């Protein structure tokens, strides 16, 4: 039903010429894949689809069109909407150049590769949707469908707390094992809506903060730096963890930062609005003082 609405509204926007492109999802190779699609012609809107497999966060694609003429319409789930807010806060996307089509999202599902088509009801939620705090878009021009209720997110920090309880050397061993696997493909950075620097600290051919060696130390440098760079700006869309080919528990790092920031400097959720600045970009005189 949402799919029908999507096609109608996309067709309408494209025929009237209000937007030059609609970014959404289409059916992928398999029944459990829905991949991003970029529609520029009204006759192509039939490709658009919204189902339980539209896992990709589309917001980052807006960066590719930030200097393009005219408007781009984009479908946003709860996490995508926060990502758009995040990019707008960083002055990467202008509000009047995007047309946001909100879709309340009941959570995305995953099926093991190769399984035969079956009812989608029994499938498990993907990792990133299990502790979703904002299934409803926080910013949109049109909302397609009805608002959905927020899932219980009590266990959001369970993985973090489990790791915090380990001893110092155990933690180091655990993360060593994890970072040893990292191949530094930078997929986590590329997909992240909080990582929008044109020139990234990890790129460049010369002497840099990150060496080119593939060893544990450089992997640690990369992963800790990445976590600190997105600190206070991570919207918990979980895309980094989803795209990681080595299955590193990246959200356990991001959530640790979020948990600490909330405890130290007051509750903050990135990307909920454009005005409220991230915690590391502001301060209060009465912040906790441990460095006396």
């Amino acid at each position, binding site marked *: 039903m949402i799919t029908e609405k999507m096609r109608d509204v996309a067709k309408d926007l494209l025929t009237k010429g209000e937007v030059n492109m609609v970014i959404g999802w289409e059916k992928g190779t398999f029944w459990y894949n829905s991949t991003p699609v970029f529609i520029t012609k009204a006759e192509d809107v039939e490709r658009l689809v919204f189902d339980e497999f539209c896992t990709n966060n589309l917001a980052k694609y807006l960066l590719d069109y930030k200097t393009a003429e005219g408007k781009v319409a984009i479908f946003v789930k709860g996490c995508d909407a926060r990502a758009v807010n995040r990019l707008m806060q960083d002055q990467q996307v202008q509000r009047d150049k995007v047309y946001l089509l909100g879709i309340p999202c009941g959570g995305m599902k995953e099926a093991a590769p190769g399984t035969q088509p079956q009812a989608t009801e029994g499938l498990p939620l993907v990792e990133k949707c299990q502790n979703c705090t904002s299934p409803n878009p926080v910013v949109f021009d049109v909302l397609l469908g009805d608002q959905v209720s927020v899932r219980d997110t009590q266990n959001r920090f369970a993985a973090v707390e489990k*790791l*915090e309880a380990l001893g*110092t*050397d*155990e*933690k*180091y*061993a*655990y*993360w*060593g094992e994890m970072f040893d696997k990292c191949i530094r493909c930078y997929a986590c950075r590329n997909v992240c809506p909080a990582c929008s620097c044109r020139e990234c*600290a990890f790129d460049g051919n010369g*002497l840099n*903060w990150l060496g080119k*060696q593939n*060893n544990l*130390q*450089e992997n*640690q*440098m990369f992963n*800790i*730096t990445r*976590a*600190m760079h997105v*600190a206070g700006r991570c919207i918990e869309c979980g895309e980094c963890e989803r795209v990681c080919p080595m299955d590193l528990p990246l959200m356990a*790092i991001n959530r*640790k*930062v979020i948990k*600490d*920031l909330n405890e*130290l*400097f007051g509750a903050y959720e990135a990307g909920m609005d454009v005005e409220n600045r991230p*915690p*590391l970009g502001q*301060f209060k*005189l009465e*912040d*906790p*003082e*441990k*460095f*006396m």
Partner: protein
Amino acid sequence: MSLDTEAVQQQPATAAQPEGAPQEWEPRIVGFACNWCTYAGADLAGLSRLQYPPSIRLIRVPCSGRVNPQFVIRAFQRGADGVLVAGCHPGDCHYSTGNYFTRRRFLLMQNMLQYMGMDPRRFQARWISGSEGPKFQQVITQMTEDIKALGPNRKMRDVE
């Protein structure tokens, strides 16, 4: 950058003797000192002939807010046993607000390093003003003692 190569070449034996003879082993602590307060405080400690362990290698930065979490990790990578970030007391920043950002950033960084399995005593931040020579002496002495007790740092390190 000069820190890593020089320091390592000067003391090639340290890596080979972990806890064997702790009295001979001197930790290497990298200190990022703000130009306006802590660097002046260190100067005062020197002028006042205050004795403190030679374990500290000070790097002068314009403001403690200049210090990036990457500096800290790099120092550990290149052989530091401890890292200190020091600047003006909150409210005294030469640039008005730099150290308030430092305070937030490094509270978070300290937790992050702990989460990654570093001993929290290896990374410290302190406010040391230009008139606090004795405090500088005391902070360095204390940190050196703590790190001596911990032994050489092997974590995150990529030099031998």
